[in-house]
């Protein structure tokens, strides 16, 4: 595994919910990233946001790691859930809350 892949693996192993995004949770730099932050915040889910704009190697590395060409990317318990469209659809259908609950993650709708 490459160094960047090892670094990504460590991140998704160390935190239950990890969002690779553009910008920070407080100041997203892209509407798609902002949308996912909004959904997670709305559900009161604690997550770690990782800003790929801070690191060009990570920005490409996460795309290769997930075999997914766009950002944001959401990981739950080390498992790739999807990007903005998938998170939004799963939120609207209630599946996102089900997924979090089934993985033992605290959900506190705000």
């Amino acid at each position: 595994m490459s160094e960047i892949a090892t670094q990504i693996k460590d991140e998704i192993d160390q935190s239950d919910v990890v969002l690779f995004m553009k910008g920070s949770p407080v100041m997203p730099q892209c509407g798609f990233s902002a949308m996912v932050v909004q959904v997670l915040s709305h559900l009161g889910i604690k997550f770690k946001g990782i800003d790929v704009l801070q690191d060009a190697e990570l920005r490409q590395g996460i795309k290769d790691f997930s075999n997914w060409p766009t950002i944001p990317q959401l990981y739950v318990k080390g498992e790739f859930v999807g990007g903005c469209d998938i998170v939004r659809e799963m939120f609207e259908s209630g599946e996102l809350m089900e997924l979090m609950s089934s993985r033992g993650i605290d959900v506190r709708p705000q």
Partner: protein
Amino acid sequence: MSVAARIRAKLEAALPIERLEIVDESHLHAGHAGARPEGESHFRLTIVSDTFAGKSRVERQRLVYDLLAEELASDVHALALSTRTRDEDETTRSPS
């Protein structure tokens, strides 16, 4: 050929498609990172095809991303996707 026409041609050649909507949303992102002055950088696609049956959301989008890898690597900065089977499309569009 415009980027939108290229997207349509590639998808229609590779998948049995019931309905395909391509919306160019580039104007909403003018001036943002990845926006090109000539537009055609941000698209929203709705693809209705039974080829998605039995596939997870991630598998469906990967299928589309793979077909459009060339566009995503060049002109297309963002691609919002809604991927549905014909049955799912009926459910989505019928009044609830």
